[in-house]
């Protein structure tokens, strides 16, 4: 049963699905548009809630996917649906005839420049969550030099219709709490503020790190979204928000502001969606057959979805989603795909 399966996207979802499908005996081809596998995970330092090294998690994913045919720096050029399979032409010149395609195109981080009032890219001391992770990895950033007061602005590009995203990005609250703790660990004398609208710490152990941030690290949580940021004469930042609990506007001078950029649908994923004429929902993420019962099936037979391509997900959710997608692919390739005679009817009934 050596069916070809093309997996688009070499992030955690793509890697995990590859590993599972390969274990089931399929011939998996994984393509990744960037030169490196791992997606955003490869750029992250530590992960909430237990502060495990991202590298360690990625290492395990890569190990699991050993043996998978993998093309990096590769995108999809064209895709044609044959009778049941897909003929996919890749940018590296190779053409793959694939019986199932799994789109694990992930997400893009919201471009914080678009929140003009926060001055990312304009004020010297404003950075994003991704910048901070890069700092944790490399140990250097021109913006960070013994900051005395550090702010974290939650919901940057999330829950913000004007920024084109009504929904919550799920991971930012926990990431902000994690990063706040890490900054306190790095700079114990610093004062750290988190500006949030709602703290959405829904997962297991998430509330624990919130409590830890308050109790052990004295992180101050202010309920109120950062409204505007300005630069003072000395280069520090003047941050304004409302403390909605106190019901009063608030200002504070900060040495560093970290913007918790949220998740947006991946632009390259959208390009693939366009090639496939696959529908997206209002939020820009791919539509699924059924949000509850069939979250890994696209509306097109043989095209599967996993990970943040179908909306913001935490890493454990993404991996679980990838495993579920692998099961769905297997079910399709064993129950529906081989029956050439009744294929169309089976698709109608079971897709």
């Amino acid at each position, binding site marked *: 049963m050596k069916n070809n399966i093309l997996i688009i996207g070499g992030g955690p979802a793509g890697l995990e699905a590859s590993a599972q499908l390969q274990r089931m005996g399929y011939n998996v081809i994984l393509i990744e548009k960037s030169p490196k596998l791992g997606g955003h995970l490869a750029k992250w330092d530590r992960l909430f809630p237990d502060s495990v090294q991202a590298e360690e998690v990625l290492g395990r994913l890569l190990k699991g996917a050993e043996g998978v045919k993998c093309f990096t720096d590769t995108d999809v050029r064209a895709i044609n649906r044959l009778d049941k399979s897909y003929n996919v032409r890749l940018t590296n010149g190779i053409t793959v005839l694939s019986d199932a395609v799994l789109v694990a195109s992930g997400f893009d981080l919201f471009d914080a420049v678009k929140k003009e009032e926060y001055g990312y890219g*304009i004020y010297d001391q404003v950075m994003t969550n991704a910048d901070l992770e890069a700092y944790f990895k490399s140990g250097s950033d021109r913006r960070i030099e013994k900051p005395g007061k550090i702010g974290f602005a939650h919901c940057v590009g999330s829950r913000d219709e004007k920024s084109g995203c009504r929904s919550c990005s799920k991971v930012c609250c926990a990431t902000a709490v994690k990063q706040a703790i890490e900054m306190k660990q790095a700079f114990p004398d610093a004062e750290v503020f988190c500006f949030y609208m709602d703290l959405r710490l829904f997962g297991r152990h998430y509330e624990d790190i919130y409590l830890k941030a308050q109790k052990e690290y004295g992180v101050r949580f202010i309920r109120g979204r950062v409204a505007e940021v*300005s630069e003072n004469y000395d280069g520090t930042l003047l941050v304004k928000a409302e403390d909605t609990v106190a019901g009063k506007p608030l200002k504070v001078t900060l040495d560093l502001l970290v913007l918790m950029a949220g998740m947006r649908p991946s632009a390259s994923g959208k390009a693939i969606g366009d090639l496939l004429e696959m529908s997206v929902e209002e939020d820009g993420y791919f539509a699924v057959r059924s949000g509850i019962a069939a979250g890994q099936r696209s509306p097109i037979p043989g095209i599967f979805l996993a990970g943040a391509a179908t909306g913001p997900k935490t890493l454990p959710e993404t991996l679980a989603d990838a495993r579920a997608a692998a099961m769905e692919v297997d079910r399709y390739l064993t129950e529906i795909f081989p029956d050439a005679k009744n294929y169309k009817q089976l698709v109608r009934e079971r897709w």
Partner: protein
Amino acid sequence: MIYEGKQKIWSDYQKEIPDDHYFYVRSCIRQSFFPASEATFLDITRNKLGKDIFETEHHTTCGGIAYHSDTIPQETVMTIIARQFALMAKNGYENYVCSCITSFGLYCETMETWREYPELEAKIRENLWKSCKLEFAKPKFLIHASDLIYKYRNQIAAQAVRKLVNVHTGEPLKVVEHIGCHYSKMFPSKGVGGAEYPYVLVGMVEAWGGEIVDYPERRHCCGFGFRQYFIKGNRGYSLSNTHKKFESMEPFKPDLIITNCPGCPYFLDRWQYVIAESTGKTYGQDGHGIPALTYEEVAGLVMGYDPWDLGLQTHQVGVEPLLDKMGVPYDPSKKYLGKNGKDIGEPLPCACLK
């Protein structure tokens, strides 16, 4: 401050500004407080740059002050605006340029409302017909007078006799720009440079050799706020707003404030006097204030207009230190002589503000 970051945003917010043929409407406040500014605008555009700027004595207020003070309903104000548009069309113009930011905001608001609710536009059309027997056409381009000066900034620079530079040190003057709230805060796309980092005045200052200063409270209102000023009991509130801006810009030691709104130069100017006289605090050098000028006045200064012809004597904050810095020649004895040499009267000296 990362300049390239701002440039990127500026490039995102560019609007189309036709080169010529405008129907010009004046500002109620500016006509009263800084009449020379509008005269200078017309002189520069018509005589120095040779543009076709038409104005008619039949236009009225846009109704903005009454509207924002909650004294007339929206339909009324829209009908007034429709009448102005009718005058433009009647005179064969498609490009509408207004001197006032309140008007500009209101025109934008009206046009956007009509776009969303065409039935309202139809109703206003009917109102206008019933009341004035006029029919209007919406302007093809609606711009603010500062947009136009922004458009001509390089031509003006080419004709300039001096730059926004301290002639004694050779350093560019530090200029604070203040944009009227209704210029782009309601519709960022309608303003040059958007709402967060408007470029309209920055472009002028840069073209004329000055240096722009970004201070934390730059977005803040000048304190006019319509009702806040008109009712005496609220005036402390208006004053406190302006005070906050001055406190914020003080460390940057600006030489000049440039504005593009009727109320702003007025409040940024007069409240400096009130703050000085009631608290003793001044924000300029050696007990002086910071001159708050209109963009036309600044353009006039670089183009070599006589400061008293530009109406700079009507400012509460003395402009002499600025003129000295810029090397603008002026005759102190003629400061309070009006258009035809008539004595317009000298104000009493201030106790705190020089």
